[in-house]
């Protein structure tokens, strides 16, 4: 399977709501919003310790999410996310501002690391519900959180039935909400190929989840 190549396209920060009461997991806003990723990488390379915090808060949650959805294993995903961020730290002195988006570069690195893990035959599988951290949105009731967890878990099970490239494309398009051209740049394929992969992936997912509508809270069709 070809490695994922060219970089293009930004990804905005998806800031989460406030921290959950148990404090186990914290959704993060994107660090210092006044600075670009490029600027933060340059600051990091110049010894600014706060830049690492901002970059971690801004990029690591999405890196972890992609790895988790592609690998289907929380522990493996954490290892991949940590390694991807490590590569960011090491790359910082050589980063050329304006030539690519840091976030897109990181997506590419993350997907390549996921591929490497799969090639090495590391354990992968469906995400277990008890592996999933508590939903961090305090505005949602406990039943809503449970429903989110069940739907997320069901989606993960269905995702793991997709071919690798379809799963990557669907995760980037519909969970990370990247544009098709951005995904095409990350996966080094045409926009038409991205559209084809996501369309086929969605059809498979819909079929896989159709039998669980009532179980997942879709009693009204």
């Amino acid at each position, binding site marked *: 399977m070809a490695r994922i190549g060219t970089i293009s396209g930004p990804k905005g920060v*998806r800031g989460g709501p406030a921290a959950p009461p148990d404090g186990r997991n914290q959704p993060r806003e994107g660090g210092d919003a006044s600075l670009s990723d490029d600027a933060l990488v340059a600051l990091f390379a110049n010894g600014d310790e706060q830049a690492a915090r901002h970059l971690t808060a801004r990029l690591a949650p999405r890196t972890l999410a992609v790895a988790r959805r592609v690998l289907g294993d929380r522990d493996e995903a954490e290892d991949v996310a940590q390694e991807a961020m*490590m590569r960011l730290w090491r790359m910082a002195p050589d980063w050329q501002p304006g030539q690519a988006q840091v976030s897109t570069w990181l997506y590419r690195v993350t997907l390549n690391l996921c591929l490497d893990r799969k090639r090495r035959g590391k354990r992968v599988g469906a995400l277990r519900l008890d592996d999933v951290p508590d939903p961090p949105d305090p505005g949602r009731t406990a039943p809503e959180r449970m429903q989110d967890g069940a739907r997320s878990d069901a989606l993960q099970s269905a995702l793991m039935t997709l071919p690798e490239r379809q799963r990557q494309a669907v995760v980037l398009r519909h969970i990370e909400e990247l544009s098709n051209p951005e995904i095409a740049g990350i996966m080094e394929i045409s926009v038409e190929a991205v559209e084809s992969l996501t369309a086929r992936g969605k059809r498979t997912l819909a079929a896989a989840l159709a039998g669980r509508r009532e179980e997942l809270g879709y009693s009204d069709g």
Partner: protein
Amino acid sequence: MAENDIKDAFLEAHFAAARRVDAGMPLALEARMLADAARVQAQQVPVMRPAAESPRRGIAGAAAGLVQHFMRVLGGWPALGGLVAASAAGVWIGVAPPDFLPDPVGLMVQYDTEVNMLDSYELSSVLPEEG
């Protein structure tokens, strides 16, 4: 068409749930990432740390920044140490060259040495006596 819309909404509800679930970031993982960052940063920019911890202002600060920039361009303390050692060795070789090397000072100055052979002899021994 309506059926497709229903399917899309059905799937989108799952994607939205996944996004909400994925929004969290384990604190232990974040701590590991930051520890990695600190370790890499310490290796990459050792000479920048003192300035970051005790920033100086004005001309002194600017000079310190310039020196640090110069140091970083050279490659930091290890590279500077090598540079000093190489320079010292060069000076020493210049002052006291090994036997197999020509005298560098002589090569540069190109001085001449005059030897007055006549002072070694009595003129009377080489000039014919009159009479």
